[in-house]
């Protein structure tokens, strides 16, 4: 996934009026989906403040993972191990708190899990040049196995006031704390990717690794840092899950890697690297969360929800795609 074919010059104009559909597909979709649900199920509780906050709260974890994922995808790699890492961090931090290390100790232990997985991924991908798809696919399994073994699949309850306030399902003012976490991570991610030298290095590495190298960029270091970002992002998401549920479970984040990749690509980031947008990703995650919520309120059962949500994702990506040569 590192070197890709040259893009073929093409007429770029695919505008309707003044809106560029292709680049803004995620915002258009989001607006469309909101409008659709507002009209069809507005009176069934979709539009209530508590439901909207509910969407915001349940989407926060996927949003955080997706934002981290935007970095690794922009650098031309992929990380499938985020879901398992989230559960690992959730369990380890909960166990640390249980063992009396307190809030700070628990959080540090959780984040270190993310760092560890990130370093392993980064090492195998950069030092041994193994495709990240394979490395992280293996890590996804391996770490999930660890998750199951640590407590023999038993949940670990967390009783710690600070943890509850910081990561819990409560609100600050009127806004759910979990959502504030997602917003904070999004702002940080956006600023780093868009405005710092590191962000440029990530995009350059994903855009053309060889040219980035010739420009003096240490592309291996950039990739390792990106894996650390996904690891730490996943760990944070894991603790948010614990906070929301009050308990850490081995099965947190199952399927989160795919939801996150969908959010990133929906948002307009190139799957091949070189182009990334955090705001797009954030809205992409909200879009997926909203669709899931609306479909439940509409009374669809799980199988139907999956079919509709899957179809919407495929269609949105299809519309957002550049025209083929």
């Amino acid at each position: 996934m590192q070197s890709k074919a040259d893009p073929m010059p093409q007429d770029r104009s695919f505008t309707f009026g003044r809106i560029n559909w292709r680049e803004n597909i995620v915002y258009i979709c989001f607006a469309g989906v909101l409008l659709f649900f507002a009209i069809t199920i507005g009176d069934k509780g979709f539009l209530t403040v508590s439901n909207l906050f509910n969407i915001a709260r349940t989407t926060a974890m996927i949003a955080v993972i997706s934002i981290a994922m935007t970095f690794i995808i922009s650098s031309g790699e992929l990380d499938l191990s985020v879901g398992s890492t989230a559960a690992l961090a959730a369990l380890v931090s909960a166990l640390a708190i249980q063992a009396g290390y307190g809030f700070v100790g628990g959080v540090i232990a959780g984040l270190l899990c993310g760092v560890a997985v990130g370093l392993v991924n980064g090492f195998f991908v950069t030092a041994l040049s193994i495709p990240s798809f394979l490395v992280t696919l293996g890590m996804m399994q391996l770490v999930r196995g660890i998750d199951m073994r640590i407590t023999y699949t038993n949940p670990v309850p967390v009783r710690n006031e600070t943890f509850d306030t910081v990561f819990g399902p409560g609100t600050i003012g009127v806004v759910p704390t979990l959502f504030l976490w997602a917003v904070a991570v999004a702002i940080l991610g956006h600023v780093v990717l868009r405005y710092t030298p590191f962000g440029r290095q990530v995009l350059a590495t994903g855009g053309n690794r060889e040219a980035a190298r010739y420009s003096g960029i240490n592309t291996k270091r950039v990739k390792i840092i990106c894996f650390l970002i996904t690891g730490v992002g996943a760990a944070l998401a894991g603790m948010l899950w614990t906070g929301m549920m009050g308990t850490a479970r081995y099965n947190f984040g199952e399927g989160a890697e795919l939801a996150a990749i969908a959010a990133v690509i929906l948002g307009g980031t190139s799957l091949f690297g070189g182009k990334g947008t955090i705001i797009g990703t954030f809205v992409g995650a909200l879009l997926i969360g909203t669709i899931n919520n609306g479909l439940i309120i509409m009374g669809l059962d799980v199988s139907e929800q999956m079919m509709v949500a899957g179809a919407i994702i495929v269609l949105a990506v299809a519309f957002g795609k550049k025209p083929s040569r």
Partner: protein
Amino acid sequence: MTTDVLIMRDIDKAFNGNPVLRHAGFTLRKGECHALMGENGAGKSTLMKILTGVYQRDAGTVQIDGTDVSFAAPRDAEAAGIAMIFQEFSLIPTLTVAQNIFLGHEPKRGNKIFIRDAEMIRRAHEILREFGENIDPRTRVEDLSVGAKQMVEIAKALSKNARIIVMDEPTASLSESEVETLFRLVNQLKKQGISIVYISHRMAEIYQICDRITAMRDGRDMLTADTSDVTMEELIRAMLGSDRTAAMDWIPRDVDMTAAPVLEVENLRVNGYVDDVSFDVRPGEILGLAGLTGSGRTEIVEAIFGIRQIDGGSVRIDGHSVRSNRDAIEAGVGLVPEDRRTQGLILDHSLRDNVILPNLARFTRNLFVGDTTARAASDRHIADLKIKCEGPEQEVYLLSGGNQQKIVLAKWLERKPKVLILDEPTIGVDIGAKSELVRKVREIADAGTAVVVISSEFEELLAISDRLLIIYDGSVIGNMNRKDVQSEEALHHAVQG
């Protein structure tokens, strides 16, 4: 024998409202090799992409054998016997030569489902042998040299019975012997009645193999004439306009040869490429590396830049040893690499983002990259190097080949390096811009930068260098002052070993 197989008239084309072609015309006779020349961004490639169905024209007519045609896609043009050989090859590296040649029109068995492999290889072999090429159709394309890849491209065109072949800067990355092979092939194709459109910025080549020339400027055809009827001066004036020159004369410069060298290379060894190479460059000096393709020039400069593993010897900048790419860049070495598409540019990023990439630290204020200063710097380079584009935000892949090359230069000029290395800096750059580049490099050297230039165009190398190293088979076999080199021929002779 002057039948026109192709007539293009009054072709207009605009991108995003910017006109690129304005009433451009072009005619092609049966069995001729017709040069298409013009400045970078004049519209040569665009005109040919309209002919081959890659782009659609806004206005104008195209006639093939007297009938009006309009191609919606490249395969329509192909069906009408027109093939284009792009500079960026369109071969699939992991497939074999034969599979590539017959891609999409493989010979099938009676049932129309299975490919007749043996037949395909036999026919591929036949086509390749016809023009004297000894390429095994079963080799994978990725294992071929650039020249051989081009032969395969041409074979692919012939396998589809192409009658018109467009070659867009075909010799840009070929070695001397590969160029000769190509020219032999062109002559053979002409004899078979195949017409060739030959886009190139190399005057000498044009006069050597083209029958007629069309010169374009600003999207218009300014002149079409028999090669024998038009002088080089007339041609340059048609392309550049009367107010600009393309002079490539050597100007002796004063370099303080007693100063301490900035760059010292000692007993440099890169296994398989470079054997025991030593030389110094002083501040303000321009050193030319002359040699044949494959003589190890690129490997020497990559080793200096720290991007290629050294197996022996040392590289020092200002007396400090350089061991990695990071050391080299921090010590102030800049390298304009040979291949702009893979090494020089991030094609789908903007001009501005490309220019600042090696200079991120300089454009960073309080942790953040300053977009406004980056923009201002890009604007300056656009004006300085006359880069034809819509602005600093335009993606690089939309620019013409020569203008892309100028951006690679801008990246490193912006860095104001202590040692500037240029590896084939003028590939695809038009003659007007070449002479501007020579001037620019002198200016940089006058300001104290040590410059190392590699170029396969000896005219350019002789115009620019104060001193020349002759590289042969990985070793330095000559070190001469520019004033002691009498002529281009002498240099040609010297590099043969």
